[in-house]
């Protein structure tokens, strides 16, 4: 028995197998917006937050911060001080594509989650910041949001309960950095998306300088489920310290890549099996368990490791966004790292010196190694650059760029050494 419990009989709840669920009538027929109705009529905001805290829901955007706690940080309403909710749908981490599925197949669950969060924190406006490349799903969601407005599920006096909240959709313009919560807020305000210094944290000064709570799409989508099925159900699904259903975005050299919904705490080996095993029956070489920026794991490191924060930390990686990238034995780890480094070089916003200059330098070095022109000392220089970048910038992009470089070189050093020019020893 794994931490995930009886996963083979797990019933999908975030992405249930219902045809046309994105349509409002289908969603309502399946019991959608009932949670909202119950919450608005029979539950106090404090109870909602308490329920969320008891559920043990942790943010699904990568950092894994307890959501109920985050909501309780929000200062109480004060006349003349607007407060905002922001849903971060700027999903652009390489290897991560779970929010996109939610937006495509179950957008009303997101809206409902936003509204419940607005009610819990007594907010009147929620922003939905969507990555601009998701043009089709933005169109879809705008259409469905209009339907929800027509049905009086969003807007003034929702369902006649006297509670009013608006949802505003905002399109990003294609920068990875906008997924960072503070630069997302800058972008939302119409400014250049440079991350802000923290403190002040968003709960103190967020959008337009007012208190703001910012949550990932999947996190907010969990809220209605907790309200209908109860905090206990949620807390008992999956790993105890990191519970709930989670969308595993599985990609790489496997037979059936895709988004799979299962409880947290799944054995990585089970997930590999669910996804059809390695392509062509090859052996697994490496696994990136949570999006491109988390440390890569060697195949011999995943034995018995489950997909939850504790187990992955012990194994030397992180849960991240649960975007799992399986790499087979033929993978060239240098080329893999070159691609990752290129991404962070391209996406560094350029605000802080270490990240702006360091990401480019790293890509240069890795490219040189990949082209067979590198020296052994370049590997040490790369590790040095990781130290020089990590923890010295405003946001975590420098860390996210340094971790894969550091860990890929450390865990696959032989691959790199083989590609370098042989050492020249003094005669």
């Amino acid at each position, binding site marked *: 028995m794994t931490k995930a419990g009886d996963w083979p009989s797990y019933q999908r709840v975030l992405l249930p197998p219902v045809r046309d669920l994105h349509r409002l009538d289908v969603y309502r027929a399946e019991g959608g917006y009932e949670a909202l109705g119950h919450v608005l009529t029979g539950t106090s905001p404090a109870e909602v937050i308490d329920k969320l805290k008891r559920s043990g829901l942790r943010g699904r955007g990568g950092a894994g911060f307890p959501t109920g706690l985050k909501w309780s940080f929000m200062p109480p309403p004060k006349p003349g001080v607007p407060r905002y909710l922001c849903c971060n749908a700027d999903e652009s981490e390489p290897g991560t594509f779970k929010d996109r599925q939610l937006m495509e197949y179950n957008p009303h669950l997101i809206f409902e989650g936003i509204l419940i969060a607005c009610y819990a924190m007594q907010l009147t406006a929620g922003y939905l910041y969507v990555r601009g490349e998701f043009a089709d799903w933005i169109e879809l969601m705008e259409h469905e949001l209009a339907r929800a407005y027509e049905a009086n599920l969003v807007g003034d006096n929702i369902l006649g309960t006297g509670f009013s909240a608006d949802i505003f959709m905002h399109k990003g313009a294609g*920068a990875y950095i906008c997924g960072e919560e503070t630069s997302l807020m800058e972008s939302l305000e119409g400014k*250049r998306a*440079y991350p802000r*210094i923290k403190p002040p944290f968003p709960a103190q000064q967020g959008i337009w300088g007012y208190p703001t709570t910012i949550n990932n799409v999947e996190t907010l989508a969990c809220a209605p489920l907790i309200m209908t099925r109860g905090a206990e159900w949620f807390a008992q699904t999956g790993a105890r310290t990191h519970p709930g259903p989670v969308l595993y975005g599985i990609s790489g050299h496997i037979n059936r890549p895709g988004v799979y919904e299962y409880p947290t705490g799944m054995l990585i080996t089970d997930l590999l099996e669910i996804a059809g095993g390695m392509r062509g029956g090859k052996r697994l070489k490496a696994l990136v368990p949570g999006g491109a920026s988390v440390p890569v794991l060697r195949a011999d490191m995943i034995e018995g490791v489950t997909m939850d924060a504790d187990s992955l930390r012990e194994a030397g990686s992180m849960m991240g966004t649960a975007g799992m990238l399986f790499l087979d034995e033929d993978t060239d780890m240098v080329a893999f790292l070159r691609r990752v480094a290129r991404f962070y*070089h*391209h*996406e*560094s*916003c*350029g*605000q*802080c*010196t*270490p990240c*702006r*200059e*360091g*990401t*480019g*330098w790293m890509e*240069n070095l890795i490219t*040189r190694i990949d082209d067979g022109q590198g020296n052994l000392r370049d590997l040490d*220089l790369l590790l040095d650059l990781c*130290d*020089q970048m990590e*923890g*010295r*910038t*405003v946001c975590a992009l420098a860390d996210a760029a340094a971790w894969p470089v550091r860990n890929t070189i450390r865990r696959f050093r032989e691959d790199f050494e083989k590609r370098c020019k042989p050492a020249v020893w003094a005669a």
Partner: protein
Amino acid sequence: MPQVTIDGRVLEFEGQPRLLQFCLDHGIELPHFCYHPAMSVPANCRQCLVDIGAPMRDRATGEVRTDGEGNPVIRYFPKLQTSCSHVIADGQVIHTARTSEKVERAQQDTMEFLLINHPLDCPICDQAGHCPLQIQAYKYGPEGSRFEFRKVHKPKRVRLGPRVVLDAERCINCTRCVRFTDEISRSHQLTIIERGVKNYPITPPGVEFDEPYSMNVIDVCPVGALTSVDFRFQARIWEMTRTPSIATTHAKGSNCFLWVRDNLVLRITPRPNPEVNEYWLADEDRLCYRQFNEDRPAGPQVRNAAGTLEAVSWEQAISTAASVLEKAGAGAAFVGSARATVEDNWLLIQLAEQTGGQVVGFMEHIEAGHGDGWLRTDERAPNSEGCRRLGMTPVDGTMLRARLEDGTITALYVLEDDVIGLLSAADLQEVSVIVHHYHTTNRTLEVAAAALPAAMSAETIGTYVNLDGYAQRVRPAKVIQGASRTLMMQMGLSRADRHGTPFDRWYNETHYINCKPSWELLPAVAEALGAKVPAGGPRRIMEQISQRCDAFRGVSYKAMGLEGMPLPASIQLEAA
């Protein structure tokens, strides 16, 4: 009082100061680029990292935990913190690069990053010599670079506007220039474009960087990325001497430095003064420097029998002026000027009293609609408030013309100004005019009987009062011919150029203007008349003004110092 420990030194503080500013105020140097005291704190250069520890407090009681010996237990932040954004709190312990290897290493690392894509073209860069990047790279940088790749190339020689050129490759993306246009001048004419290592500041499409304060971004730029169209490649910093002075094109009296090489003023930059102009200077105040070098007179002149101006000796010119005044007696009218110093205007009043003549007022230079309520003013001369406080009023042109016509005025003594415009040459046909002039373009010369070249604000000593009643001094930045001991005593002592030596390729005697300060000329004219006007240099003249004139009570050169002083409030004066 709350305390912090910086490198083992215990310092007290009040309020909630930011660490970097606190350190700079206490003489503890921390390298930094993006931080500017007048602007917001983006903490993006990451150069000012320090190690900060705070005393551990007991969760329950809030008391500071102590070790066995009673010392507080210090817990350090897991990451290094940027001192520019850190607000210090009681009991914190801070280690800079002087006491922490970790910080030293971090500062070296950041500097290495800053330099990998910087062109390092210091030998041809205008900023070299006073470049924060250059200076701090020597002090805090690594010994070499491990970067072995092509540097990133970006646009060079981009004209952002009529006065500012951008070299984007030199830019280190501190965003000071962008923040200046967003937060200080509010023109929003600059922005950062591109992303990551390709970032650079530029104007939005279709916008020209032409705001009247655009050149301030050259001063705030910590590298040579933004340079002046006008001053580019004109001189090296170390060849010039800078002299603290006052800008003279507006009545705000913005503080500035005059940069002089071989007796030519080559540029003007702002001098911080929190009471007047903070850190800024209007573009016009900078670009007016040519007036100190060009069209300057060759020496005194008098009008000969043939009716043309003829070069004469100073003695002859002064005696001609004296005889004109003697002949006119009570018919002599004296015109002061908002361009002349308080001392010179006051001496003119004294001369008028001695000769029985009359001061008809001072010349104002109003350009309506020019001012913006900040550093630019409608008044285009530096000292109209000083003239007013001496009891003078602006010249009434209509009345003056009427009195010229009815013959009550037979001589006109014009101090450092041009009366043509206020009057016409025809008005002055019958009148003997004496003029102290700055430039050969002064149109009063056409009608002048005696023309006495006067020293300009860059060559003299004196006081200007700005429109807020703030008295400030000017100092001689360049040498004039036959300079007096008083002037030489006030010259900057560290004049590296020594006014040009015969070995310097730029040494040129013609740059010594043959003129005299009015505080020498006016007593000389009085002496030739047998009258007595206070002499002995502007310092003593100001002593007398402060004794005899209520508006200047308590004003002295010592009290003014470099930053100036407010005059007694004018309301009290009226009551007195």
